[in-house]
């Protein structure tokens, strides 16, 4: 297997290079096939790798390493480290990545930047694979920055629009703040462990005391990185803006894979977090707060992609909450099902936008059920999955997360359940407004409405099937399942020698009761939403018509304006002060004086250059004599 590992990142990289260099010469079909084929190849290799771990749960970690940085006392290696976790992530990235590439062939067919788009997508997959395959935090960081770059390029893909460019810059800068935390975390790790490789770090971490300041600091700093990349409070504002990119990008990067990098990092370093419960508490609180906060904002958004974006933020918050209570394998389970149904939701939204000719406002949609049957069916499946209607995938994964929350503390369960119910409300609001009722768009749009081509519907169908049956991976014991995924990850989730015991066991009865409560709440919520938007046919108003708290929600709690006022404006002030005083008065003066001084000196010294060659030779000979004499008499 080791011999094939390099193919995993190499194929997307090759796709990027070919599509990138030959983008003006390849036809769209060829470029699309190269891009998709590269990811398909990686997916096949990924399956082969995964199969090893599947057949043999105790399979050894595949690791390759080579010397990278070797300066003085700093020795850093680069290499691949593939265990159960990486193999799982590789499957998600390349599998969903391939479906989305396929989808993009249809979605981007009429875009002039089609070939460039595929080059960027391949670049993204390459860096994402580096991120999950790397054998050290430094290599993870390389992938981390790489996906940030790909994300930047793709958000600003339609770069003739200034708003889109600003969204791209915002995403990049927000991520930088998180990356600073990650970097500091790495420095801390290197300072304390003298290495950045996973294996030795995890081995040494075990020797620290519970809640050792070192581990808590590292865990918190790494979590700051995760906050940026996975869009948690307070660094989440870039993700809704990132919807400026083409919809397949939103599906692949800003829903299914890149934003889960933070989750991956914490699961990867789970031993550090388990040994630092204080940090875990922070993760828990931030995750829970983000989950509720973003869900509330999602209630009043009218842009189909914005709703999904806030839903993503909210679900990521739920995942961090799960990590906060130490339910790592449950988080991975929900991450996987979330990747299925959220990618599906975005792709479905893309299909709707495609059919509507670029319209994104749900107030002008409605009644699309008949015109877009496949999109309708798959979107419904995904909505039900995210709402947690049994027996769809979301039910099992969300329920498991909630169960772990309850085991930690019932209060957390109440809050998380509240966030879930809000999720149900805004998702069904979105669904009903889009697919039920009457069409509210223009005549022209109604005429233009059409189902998407097969290359777009096939990924939808595949993802719908996965969203429906995905829960089978980890059926809990009370339904006669054997919690397969939980066992699969057992080797990755370390059980430290002196970790604090989390929560308490709950009885089957209570577990069933919780499920029942959730399902009941979900159904009630759906009924209320249906009553409002279908039976009464209400159409939400624009934010201008809203008042009070509702308007505040519709305007996203003015967080962007707050950041603008408290951070951006003062920064501009400081910058202009620096510019007018330090730059113009001081630095320019020094630079100009240096130049003018040299000009003045040259005016004197140019006299030496007589241009007489005989003179030059004469001076040369005298200099030789002087040198020899110096050697002879002085030294």
């Amino acid at each position, binding site marked *: 297997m080791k011999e094939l590992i390099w193919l995993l990142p190499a194929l997307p990289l090759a796709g990027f290079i070919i599509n990138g260099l030959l983008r003006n010469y390849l036809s769209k079909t060829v470029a699309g096939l190269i891009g998709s084929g590269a990811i398909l190849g990686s997916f096949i290799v990924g399956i082969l790798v995964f199969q090893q771990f599947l057949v043999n749960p105790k399979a050894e970690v595949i690791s390759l390493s080579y010397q990278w940085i070797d300066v003085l006392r700093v020795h850093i290696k680069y290499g691949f480290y593939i265990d159960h976790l990486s193999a799982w992530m590789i499957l998600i990235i390349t599998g969903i990545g391939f479906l989305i590439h396929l989808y993009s062939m249809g979605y981007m067919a009429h875009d002039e930047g089609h070939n460039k788009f595929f080059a960027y997508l391949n670049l993204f997959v390459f860096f994402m694979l580096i991120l999950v395959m790397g054998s050290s935090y430094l290599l993870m960081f390389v992938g981390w920055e790489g996906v940030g770059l790909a994300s930047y390029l793709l958000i600003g893909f339609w770069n003739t629009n200034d708003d889109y460019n600003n969204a791209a810059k915002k995403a990049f800068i927000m991520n930088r703040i998180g990356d600073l935390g990650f970097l500091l975390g790495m420095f801390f790790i290197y300072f304390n462990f003298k290495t950045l490789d996973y294996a030795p770090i995890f081995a040494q971490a075990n020797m620290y005391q519970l809640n050792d300041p070192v581990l808590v600091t590292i865990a918190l700093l790494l979590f700051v990185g995760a906050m940026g990349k996975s869009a948690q409070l307070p660094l989440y504002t870039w993700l809704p803006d990132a919807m400026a990119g083409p919809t397949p990008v939103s599906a692949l990067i800003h829903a299914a894979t890149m934003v889960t990098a933070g989750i991956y990092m914490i699961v990867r370093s789970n031993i550090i977090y388990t040994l630092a419960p204080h940090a875990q508490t922070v993760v828990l609180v931030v995750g829970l707060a983000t989950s509720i906060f973003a869900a509330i904002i999602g209630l009043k958004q009218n842009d189909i992609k914005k709703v999904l974006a806030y839903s993503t933020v909210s679900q990521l918050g739920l995942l961090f909450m799960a990590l906060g209570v130490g339910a790592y394998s449950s988080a991975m389970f929900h991450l996987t099902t979330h990747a299925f149904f959220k990618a599906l939701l975005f792709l479905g939204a893309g299909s709707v936008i495609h059919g509507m000719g670029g319209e994104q406002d749900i107030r002008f949609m409605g009644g699309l059920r008949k015109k877009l049957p496949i999109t309708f069916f798959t979107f419904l499946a995904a909505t039900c999955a995210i709402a947690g209607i049994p027996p769809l995938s979301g039910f099992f994964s969300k329920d498991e997360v909630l169960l772990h929350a309850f085991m930690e503390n019932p209060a957390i369960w109440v809050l998380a359940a509240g966030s879930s119910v809000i999720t149900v409300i805004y998702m069904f609001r979105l669904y009903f407004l889009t697919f039920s009722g009457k069409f509210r768009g223009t005549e022209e749009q109604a005429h233009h409405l059409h189902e998407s081509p097969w290359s777009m519907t096939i990924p939808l169908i595949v993802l719908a099937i996965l969203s429906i049956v995905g829960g089978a991976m980890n059926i809990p014991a009370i339904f006669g399942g054997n919690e397969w995924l939980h066992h699969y990850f057992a080797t990755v989730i370390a059980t430290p020698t002196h970790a604090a015991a989390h929560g308490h066991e709950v009885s089957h009865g209570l577990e069933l009761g919780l499920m029942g409560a959730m399902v009941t709440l979900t159904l009630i919520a759906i009924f209320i939403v249906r009553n409002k938007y279908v039976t009464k046919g209400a159409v939400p108003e624009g934010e201008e018509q809203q008042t009070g708290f509702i308007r505040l929600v519709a305007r996203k709690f003015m967080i962007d304006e707050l950041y603008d006022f408290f951070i951006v404006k003062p920064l501009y002030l400081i910058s202009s002060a620096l510019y007018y005083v330090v730059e113009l008065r001081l630095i320019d003066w020094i630079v100009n004086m240096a130049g003018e001084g040299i000009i003045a000196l040259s005016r004197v010294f140019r006299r030496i250059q007589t241009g007489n060659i*005989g003179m030059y030779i*004469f001076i040369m*000979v*005298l200099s*030789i*004599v002087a040198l*020899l*004499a110096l*050697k*002879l008499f002085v030294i």
Partner: protein
Amino acid sequence: MIVDSIFFFLSFVAILCALLVVFSKNPIHSVLYLILTFFAIAGHYVLLNAQFLAVVHIIVYAGAIMVLFLFVIMLLNLNAETEPHKNFITKLIATISGGLLLVTIVGSFKAAAQTGIVSFDNSNIGTIENLGKVLFNEFLLPFEISSILFLSAMIGAVLLGKKKLV
């Protein structure tokens, strides 16, 4: 001893001719004296058992380089009348600084205090066989690179000699 006499004779010829190169008014004479100097140096090479080098020296310098010099001088029609001269002061300063250089270098050698004797009996190092072995074993790469140098010099000379530079 006879070798000593040969050494002194050759040295005398070399130095005399070299001085004549510098001081003769007519460039043609300078070239001819230079050829004589080269012959004297070739004689030294033979004396030092560097027979191959002596032959190559004659062929390259006397045969090729000096002929080139003669051609150019005749082509440009240089002679004693057109020869420019420096003024007396410049000449004096030049001579003094040349003498200074001589004195300093000799002084340096004196300080180094070499006392060895150059043997004329070591007859096998300058043979073609021995030289070829050294050249094509240790110095193969420089040898090949020098061929590139030659090629570029040739192209450069041709390019410079063309009527109009392209």
